[in-house]
């Protein structure tokens, strides 16, 4: 089983960090993982993306060209990658930042006002993790327990408040029904 995930948005939205947490979650589950920051011809115009592969087997190509899961945090990213998502795949959109909708009917699309929810819950910069929560709930690729372990691994112990914020954010994403 292999999950190919693409996270895309503007630089500064925490795309790379969310990707890193995702990759660490795979690591906590003893999977093979890879994390590749935007480093191809697609890097332009201040957009930022990140390929994450989580697999039971060796990861062949770390570059996700046809994601099974797309997290889109701005309109250009959604427009750019919407047609590359595999049929039957999942798209999670930050609807605070994206005003477009997905017309494809062969994918499962979820809209979640992650940036607004982050502001409402006093979690600045937490939209990326809220979106991850939504992905976890809808796809089951990572459990809440695994995510917690990943956060503990990545966030240093002395920044406990930061870890708590991330756990709160992921819960908001998992609980959101819209």
């Amino acid at each position, binding site marked *: 089983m292999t999950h190919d995930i693409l996270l895309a948005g503007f630089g500064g939205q925490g795309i790379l960090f969310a990707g*890193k947490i995702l*990759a*660490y979650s795979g*690591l906590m589950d003893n999977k*093979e*993982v*890879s*994390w*590749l*920051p935007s*480093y*191809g*011809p697609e*890097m332009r115009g201040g957009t930022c993306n990140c390929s994450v592969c989580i697999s039971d087997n060796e*990861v*062949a*190509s*770390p*570059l996700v*060209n*046809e994601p099974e899961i797309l997290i889109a945090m701005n309109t250009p990213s959604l427009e750019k990658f919407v047609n590359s998502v595999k049929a039957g795949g999942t798209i999670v959109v930050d609807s605070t930042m994206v005003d477009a909708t997905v017309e494809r009917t062969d994918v499962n699309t979820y809209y979640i006002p992650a940036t607004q929810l982050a502001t409402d819950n006093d979690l600045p910069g937490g939209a990326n993790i809220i979106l991850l929560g939504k992905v976890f709930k809808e796809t089951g690729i990572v459990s809440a327990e695994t995510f917690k372990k990943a956060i503990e691994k990545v966030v240093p112990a002395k920044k406990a408040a930061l870890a708590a914020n991330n756990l709160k954010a992921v819960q908001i994403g998992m609980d959101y029904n819209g």
Partner: protein
Amino acid sequence: MERNLMKGNEALAEAAIRAGCKCFFGYPITPQTEISAYLAKRFKQAGGVFLQAESEIAAINMVLGAASTGVRAMTSSSSPGISLKSEGISYIAGSDLPCVIINVQRGGPGLGGIQPSQADYWQATKALGHGDFHLLVFAPNSVQEMVDTVTKAFDLADEYRMPAMILADGLLGQMMEPVTFPEVTAKEIEKPWAANGHGNKREHNIINSLFLQPDVLEKSVKDRFERYAEIKEKHSDAELYMTEDAEVVVTAYGATARVAKAAVNMAREQGIKAGLIRPITLWPFPVKQINEGAKNAHTIICAEMSMGQMVDDIKLAVNCSKPVEFFGRTGGVIPKPSEILDEIKKYGGAK
């Protein structure tokens, strides 16, 4: 052993310290700067010398100086910087000094771009500087293999008194993968030739690449080529993946081999007998392994992030006994698995 996620560049730097590297001399250039940044910090704790040189030329000559005294020395750069180092690398080879040089390749020629590339294959394997010489050239394809290769590069460089290069690329340098650091015991290799002060206990050592008598120079070069012959015999390396019954084999190294493996997996799912030959050493070139891997193939596809710099070596390896087709992207464009799959299909049907 604990698995951690690390960027290729940082993992490589950490592995170098564990392999007994005592000094690093470098100059900033994308996409390898993490190596310098990591070592600038880590050498402080681990005990070692980090120095940012005024140029690539100075950096490689600092490596020459340190290596002359017998310590394990390393430098790293990316393509345009390696061109500048070529003078020093020739002197290092001509002085029979061991060292490790990292090239995290980017697109060229000229200033080129900063995206991943494999367009320095010719430079690394054929023409890194003037004169009759070779470097050991390793082409890892994962973060873990970057780690494992560093130790091997230092050990073989010391054993054969020659420079070793790790030919990586921007993709391998920038990506994170799980990595473990095996307990390394750096090989203790005696260096009686080192110029580190004779302490009035021996004759003076001279580290030198100048031999004005043609017959003396010829002998020194020929001696070196005898060592090269032994290296070719003992240390060429390649991974063969699903080649046993493969009718079409893809040859690819480094990051391209990752993409090619995905393509081979896709082809197999479609019932096409495809395989992958992945050279791990580019010099010495794994001729035996290529022939073994291609024995049942009617077509070889050489996939690269260049305009086909490895193609001739593959043709020579199989003695032009079967067609070697080329597929590549260059300038920093990373091929897609689907593109290589299309190539496999194109040749997979025809016999």
